[in-house]
C-alpha cells in the first residue's frame, strides 16, 4: 500500500468512531483532497480484494473500519465483543418520527404515536441517538429534539438525506381494492 494509505489505516485503527475526511486530512497536510480520496479508495480496495476480516466504510459522517458481517456471530459467541441491544418498537417509532420531522417536540411526537413518549425519549437520549437541539415556540417553550451523528453511525448512514423520502412511502392503505 502507499505510505498515505498505511498512515490512514493506522489512524482509522486507532479510532473507535468514524473519522471525518477533514480530520484525516490533518494527518498529511501535503496531501491533496484527491490524493486522500485515492488513498482511501486504495485501502478499501485492499481490504476487499486481499481477503481481510475487516472493511472500510464511510458512514456516520466519517470513515470507519468495521468487521465483516460474516464473523459477527462467531465473535459474539466467543464473547470477545457484544452487539448492541436492539431498539424496541416504541423506540424505533419515536426515532423514526424524530429522524423525519426534526426538530420536533415531545407533544408533536405523542400526537403522531398516540402514546406518552417521555420514557422512550429518555432512553434515546441516554443512548446518544437524539439530542435536544433547541426550544420551540409556544407554551413553556418546549424542547425540540433531533438526531445525533451517533444515530447516523448506528444506522450506517452517511447523511440524513440517505433516508428514503417520506413521500416515497406507500401511504395509501387501501389494503384490498374494494369494489365500490
Amino acid at each position, binding site marked *: 500500500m502507499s505510505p498515505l494509505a498505511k498512515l490512514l489505516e493506522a*489512524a482509522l*485503527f*486507532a*479510532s*473507535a*468512531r468514524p*473519522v471525518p475526511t477533514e*480530520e484525516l486530512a490533518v*494527518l498529511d497536510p501535503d496531501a491533496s483532497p484527491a490524493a486522500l480520496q485515492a488513498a482511501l479508495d486504495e485501502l478499501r480496495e485492499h481490504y476487499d480484494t486481499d481477503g481481510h476480516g475487516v*472493511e472500510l*466504510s464511510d458512514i456516520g459522517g466519517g470513515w*470507519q*473500519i*468495521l*468487521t*465483516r*458481517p*460474516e*464473523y*459477527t*456471530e*462467531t*465473535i459474539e*459467541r466467543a464473547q470477545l*465483543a457484544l*452487539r*448492541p441491544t*436492539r*431498539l*424496541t*418498537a*416504541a423506540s*424505533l*417509532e419515536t426515532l*423514526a*418520527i424524530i*429522524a*423525519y420531522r426534526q426538530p420536533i417536540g415531545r407533544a408533536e411526537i405523542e400526537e*403522531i*404515536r*398516540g*402514546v*406518552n413518549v417521555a420514557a422512550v425519549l429518555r432512553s434515546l437520549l441516554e443512548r446518544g441517538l437524539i439530542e435536544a437541539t433547541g426550544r420551540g415556540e409556544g407554551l413553556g417553550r418546549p424542547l425540540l429534539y433531533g438526531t445525533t451523528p451517533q444515530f447516523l*453511525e*448506528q*444506522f*450506517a*448512514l452517511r447523511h440524513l438525506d440517505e*433516508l*428514503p423520502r*417520506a413521500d416515497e*412511502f*406507500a*401511504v*395509501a*392503505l*387501501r*389494503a*384490498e381494492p*374494494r369494489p365500490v
Partner: protein
Amino acid sequence: MTVPIDLSPDAPPPSFVVELPEYAGPLDLLLSLIRDEKVDIYDIPIARICEQFLARIHDLGLNEAADYLEMAARLIRIKAQMLLPRSAGEEGWEDPRAELVRRLLEYQQIREAVDVLEKLSEDRRSRFARSYIPVSNAPPVAPLSLSLAELLAAVDRVLRAAREPVLHDIVPRALDVDGAIETVRAVLALRSSALWRDIVRGNAEPWEVLSALLALLELARRGELRLAQSRPFASVEIVRESPGEAA
C-alpha cells in the same frame, strides 16, 4: 478450518426473544384491525372497528392504559357522530372519521420509516467497530481547551443555581489581581518559565487562586507571558515573553 456455524439445539430458542407489547400503541392496534378486517381505511366501518377495538383492549388487559382508553373514547365519539342526521345536506357535511384517517395514514408512514430504520440498524449491528483502543494509540481527538478558571466559573454557576439566595451579592473586588500580577512578574524575572505551582502555593486561599488565575490571563493578554501546554493534559507552562529579548 472454516467458520463454525452453530446449528446445535442449545442455541437459544427463538421464543426466548424479548416479548414486546403486542402493539406499539392504539394507532398500531387500530391499523392491525383495519388490516385484519380488510376494510378500506378511507371508509372505516366505525361501529364494527370500535367494537373490536374495545374487545381487543379488554383481551389484552389494556383497560387501564390511558392511551388506549383515549382512543376508545374517540372511536365511540366518532361512532355517535356518524349516527347524527346529516342536517346541512351533503354539501357541508364533514366526515367525522377524517381526522382519524389522517392520523392513521401519518402513522402508517412512520411504520414504513421504522421498517427502513430496522433494516439499516440490523446491517450495522452485524459489524463491529474497534472497541479496544490501547492508550498509547490515542484516536485523533482534538485536544481539550479547559482552564481552572472555567471550571471554577462552572462551580459558581452550579452553586448559584443550587442555593440561589446565598450567593446574591457578588463583589469580585475581593480579589487581589494586582498583587498576583506582581508575584507572577517577580517569578518570571528570575526564570524564563514557571509552572502553576510556582505561582500559587499548595495551601493557597481561594481568593489567591482566583487572583493568580486572573493575573495570568491578564498578563497573557498583555503579551507578557504565554501559557503553553506541550500536549493535551500536560501541565500548563507559564513562559516569559519579553518583547525586547532575543528568542
